């Protein structure tokens, strides 16, 4: 279980998180929604220690994330970054198998390559992509390689930062199904950030809406249409008029 308790984070005068309280149960899929620049990425980066909160506490399975063995802690996670964040100098398969080629999860090179190709196939990419450099791929393909890297070591917890942005609707559907499959089959815990309401309905067990630095609404995905929360209603229906200012 992942728990954020009163997490705050500011950058100068920009108070991004003003006391976020959030719980994600083991083996469930939470989708965080909210306007651009509301701190969704900062929230998940805080869990991973990429951003240090100003105040508050974050625990994973009851253990404070600042008190854990860093390598063992990070070995439990996979993360898909917004722009894929592939390493330009490495071929695709080495990007996917990065964790399997070094450190505590190191495997023989041939085995790591086979796993990478299998993960690439899972995200809809053919084996001939394996030896290409990331710069030779389209944005959507890079995103899928990033997803393959996130799941390469079969992590217990996976974070997806806008997994379907830049993908065509068919591939977005494939990725949504894959995320759902990972949660169901692997029993992984997932936190996804997305603006795509189709993805929200396909991926989520639970939804949390982040607005103005706090969790504005949280609940099961089945309740989002009947929440009665004007902020959530405006967001999911994409209305320009409502309590959320269009000019931010």
């Amino acid at each position, binding site marked *: 279980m992942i728990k954020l308790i009163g997490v705050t984070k500011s950058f100068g005068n920009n108070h991004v998180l003003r006391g976020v309280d959030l719980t994600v149960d083991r083996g469930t899929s939470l989708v965080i929604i909210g306007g651009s620049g509301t701190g969704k990425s900062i929230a998940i980066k805080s869990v991973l220690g990429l951003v240090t909160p100003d105040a508050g506490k974050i625990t994973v399975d009851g253990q404070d994330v600042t008190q854990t063995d860093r390598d063992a802690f990070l070995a439990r996670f996979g993360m898909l970054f917004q722009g894929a*964040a592939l390493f330009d100098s490495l071929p695709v398969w080495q990007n996917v198998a990065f964790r399997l080629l070094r450190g505590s999860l190191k495997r023989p090179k041939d085995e790591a390559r086979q796993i990478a190709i299998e993960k690439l196939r899972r995200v809809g990419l053919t084996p001939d992509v394996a030896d290409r450099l990331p710069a030779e791929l389209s944005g959507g393909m890079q995103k899928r390689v990033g997803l393959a890297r996130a799941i390469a070591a079969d992590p217990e917890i996976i974070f997806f930062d806008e997994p379907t942005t830049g993908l065509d609707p068919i591939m977005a559907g494939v990725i949504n199904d894959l995320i759902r499959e990972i949660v169901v089959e692997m029993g992984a815990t997932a936190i996804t950030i997305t603006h795509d309401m189709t993805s929200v309905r396909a991926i989520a067990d639970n939804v949390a809406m982040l607005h103005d630095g706090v969790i504005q609404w949280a609940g099961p995905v089945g309740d989002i249409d009947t929440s009665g929360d004007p902020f959530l209603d405006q967001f999911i229906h994409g209305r320009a008029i409502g309590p959320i200012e269009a000019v931010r």
Partner: protein
Amino acid sequence: MTLLAAIGRSFLGLIAAIGRIAIFAGQTIGHIVRGPFYLRELAVSFLNIGWLSLPVVGLTSLFTGAALALQIYAGSARFSAEAVVPQIVAIGMVRELGPVLVGLMIAARVTSSIAAEIATMKVTEQIDALVTLSTHPMKYLTVPRVLAATIVVPLLVAVGDIIGIFGGYAVATGTLGFNPAAYIRNTLDFLELKDVVSSLAKGAMFGFIAALMGCYYGMNSGRGAQGVGSATKGSVEAAAVLILGANFVLTGVFFSL
């Protein structure tokens, strides 16, 4: 009062920057002596910093040595001391021009490239990705580059010294009428072990500074294309100034104290 405050702020900013760079250097050295080591990245850094810098180092040294011979000949001819050309070219190249020019060429070619690469990695979240993949960015990015530069730049300086002396030799024997055998004998007789050691030591220090500045500015770059540009520009400026400052200090250590 406003002027004084501005001067004070600038001074404090400078002191803080020196402190941050010193801490970064200390952390880098700390990681150099502790594993894990990424040998592939080290090998790639040797190739990029050493082998691929050879053409620019060679040409720079060749033309500088040749021009130096012409200048010394023209200057020494005023008091009929043309015979000192081999000795002064050798001393000038090995003690000063060789290491400084190679250092500055490395700052221009390698520091800028390291800063731009790492800054781009930071902007595109590749550094964050490294962390999530249980890989320490300093160990993976900084250590191989700094270690490779510290080892390989002295070798480049040695090559630059030799090519620079050869440039002087080619001009002196080809156009100024010097005897080839006498030129080489005079060069070798005049150089001391201390000259060579100081040249290589300067090379090691300049290599360390050049790579460290590239990594520091890259790791601390701002956002977007402007952040990458500022990091690249700042890294080259800082590396060049620090190399020239370190050259003065090392010259003092080797030849004045």
